C-alpha cells in the first residue's frame, strides 16, 4: 500500500517537474532572441541610424531614417483606417449585436482574425495596387488596417460588455439620449481597456512584413506623401537579412533592435495601462 502511494507521489513530482521544464524551454527562445538582438544590434545604433538614408553596398555608415519614417507612416495609416471603424463596429456588436446580422458580423470578424497575413497582402494588392498600378504607403496602410480591424472590433465589444449596465441606466435616467449614453458613459468607462486592446493590435501590425511585400513594397530613398512605395523597418530587416553583405546584416540586427523596442514598449505600456482597472485581463 505504501509502495503504491510512494509511486504515485513519484509520478506526481516527475510530471510537475516536466511542466516546469516545459515552461523553461518555452522561454529559452525569448531570452535568446532578446540577447542576440541586443548584442548584435546595439553596435549599429547611433545618430546616423536615425537620421540618414541607407548607403549603397560597399559604403559603410548610413542609416534607416526612411524606414523608421515609413513604419510610422504605415502605422499611422493603419490606425486611421482601422481604429474608428473597428471601435464603431464593436459598439454595434455590444449594443445591438444579438440580431442575426450581429451574429454574422461577429462570425466574419472571427474568420478574418484567422486569415493569414500574406493572403491579406494578396487581397489588398488586387483591391488597391492593381487599380493604382503602383505600390504605395496607402496600400500598405490598408493591408495593416484590415489585419487590425477584427481584433479592435472584438476587443471593443468584449470590454463594453464588461461595463455595468447600471451606469447606462443612470445616464438614461437623467434624460440622456441612448447614443450619448453609449458614447459618453459606456465607451468612456471602457476606454482604458479598449486602448490596451488597440495598442496590442498596433504592436502586432507594426512588425508585420508579409502584407507589405506587395503593397507598400520598399524604397531606398525617402518617400513623400502616401502615394509612393515606402521603406519600413520589417521589410528592411527582411531584405537586409537575406542579402549576402556583412554590413547589411549588421544593419538588419540594429533595425531589429529598434523594431523590437518599439513593439515591446507598446506591449508593456498597454498592459500597464489597465493594471487594476475595469477590463484588465
Amino acid at each position, binding site marked *: 500500500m505504501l509502495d503504491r502511494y510512494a509511486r504515485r507521489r513519484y509520478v506526481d513530482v516527475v510530471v510537475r517537474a516536466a*511542466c516546469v521544464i516545459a515552461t523553461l524551454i518555452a522561454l529559452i527562445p525569448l531570452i535568446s532572441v532578446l540577447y*542576440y538582438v541586443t548584442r548584435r544590434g546595439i553596435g549599429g545604433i547611433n545618430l546616423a541610424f536615425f537620421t540618414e538614408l541607407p548607403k549603397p553596398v560597399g559604403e559603410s555608415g548610413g542609416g534607416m531614417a526612411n524606414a523608421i519614417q515609413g513604419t510610422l507612416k504605415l502605422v499611422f495609416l493603419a490606425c486611421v483606417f482601422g481604429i474608428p471603424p473597428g471601435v464603431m463596429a464593436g459598439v454595434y456588436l455590444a449594443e445591438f449585436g444579438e440580431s442575426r446580422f450581429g451574429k454574422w458580423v461577429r462570425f466574419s470578424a472571427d474568420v478574418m482574425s484567422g486569415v493569414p497575413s500574406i493572403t*491579406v497582402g*494578396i487581397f489588398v494588392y488586387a483591391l488597391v495596387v492593381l487599380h493604382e498600378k503602383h505600390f504605395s504607403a496607402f496600400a500598405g496602410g490598408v493591408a495593416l488596417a484590415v489585419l487590425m*480591424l*477584427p481584433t479592435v472590433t472584438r476587443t471593443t465589444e468584449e470590454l463594453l460588455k464588461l461595463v455595468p449596465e447600471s451606469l447606462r441606466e443612470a445616464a438614461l435616467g437623467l434624460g440622456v439620449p441612448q447614443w450619448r449614453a453609449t458614447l459618453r458613459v459606456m465607451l468612456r468607462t471602457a476606454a482604458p481597456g479598449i486602448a490596451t486592446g488597440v495598442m496590442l493590435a498596433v504592436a502586432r501590425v507594426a512588425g508585420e512584413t508579409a502584407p507589405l511585400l506587395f503593397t507598400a513594397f520598399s524604397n531606398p530613398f525617402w518617400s513623400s506623401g502616401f502615394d509612393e512605395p515606402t521603406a519600413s523597418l520589417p521589410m528592411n530587416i527582411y531584405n537586409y537579412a537575406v542579402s549576402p553583405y556583412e554590413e547589411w546584416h549588421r544593419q538588419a540586427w540594429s533595425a531589429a533592435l529598434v523594431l523590437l523596442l518599439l513593439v*515591446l514598449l507598446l506591449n508593456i505600456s498597454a498592459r500597464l495601462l489597465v493594471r487594476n482597472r475595469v477590463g484588465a485581463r
Partner: protein
Amino acid sequence: MSVSHDISPLIRPRSKILTRFGREVNWGDFAFRRLTALLAALMIAALLAMIAAMVHGSAESLRTFGLGFVSSEIWNPVRDVYGALPFIYGTIASSVLALCFAVPISLGVAIFLSELAPAWLRDPVGFLVELLAAVPSVVYGLWGIFVLAPWLRDTVEPFLASTLGFLPLFQGQQRGFGMLAGGIILAIMITPTISSVSREVLRAVPSALREGALGLGATPWEAVRVAVLPYARSGLIGATILGLGRALGETMAITMVIGNRSEISVSLFAPSYTMASVIANEFSEATGSLYLSALAEIGLLLFVVTVLLNIVARLLVWRVGTVPVGGRL
C-alpha cells in the same frame, strides 16, 4: 411585481422599442445605430471582398489546371506550368513538425500556469510567454538565419545523424536551413497561442471537479489527469487547431529558414518550401497572368484551409465555455 415587470422596457429602452413610440424616436439614436451598423457591415463586406478577390484572381489557374494543380509536382514559371504539391507538402509537414514540438510544451506551460505554479508566479510567467507572441515574425526569421540555423548545422544535426541516422528522417546533407529549422521556428511562434488558449480553457474548468479529486486523495497531477483534462479535452484540441492554423499561414520567419527549394524529401535536414513562402518570394516578381493566377490560387487554398480550421477550433473552444478575447493573439 407586475408593475416592475411593466416598466422594465422603459428603464432599459432598446432601440426597437424606441423607434415604435412617438417621442422616443431620437434622431441621434437612429443615426447612431445606422452608422455603427454600416461600419459593422464593413466587416462582412471585407470578408466577402477578400473571398471574391481571391477567387477572381485565381480563376485563370483554376480553369487551366483544375484539380491537377494540387497533385502536380512541377512548378515551372519558364514553361508556364504550375503544380502546388511541393508547397502543400512543405506547409503540412512543417506545421505538423511544429505541432510535435509545440503541443507538449504548450500543454506543460498551460498546466503549470493554471494548476501548479504558485499564485505570485502565474502572471509574470504568463506575461513572458505572451511576449513570445509579440516578437515580430521577421525578427524570429533574422534570429533563425544567424543563430538557430548555424546551431542546428553544427550541433544538433550532426548529433541526430550520428545517433538516429539510420532513420531516413535524419539523413542527407546538414545545412541548418531546412524542414527542421522551419518546424522549430513555427513551434516557437505558435507556443504562445496554444498555451494561452489552453490556459483559458483550463481556467474555465469548474474548481469543484479539482477539489473533488483532491478530496478523494488524488495527488495534484492525478487531479489534473482524471478531473481537469477530460473536461477540457475539446478546448485543448481547439487550442491546438488554432495553433495549426497559425502555423500554416505563417510567412516571414519560415521563408527565411526553410531553404526555399521545391523538393519533396522525407529528410528533416532537406530544404523545403511552403505555400506562404512561395507567395512571399514570387508574387511581386511574377510576370504573366497565369503565373500570378497560380500564386493567387495557392493563396486561396491557404485561405480556405485556415478559415475552416479556425471555425472548427473556435467551436471546440466554445464548448468548454470560454471565448478568449482575440484567441489568435
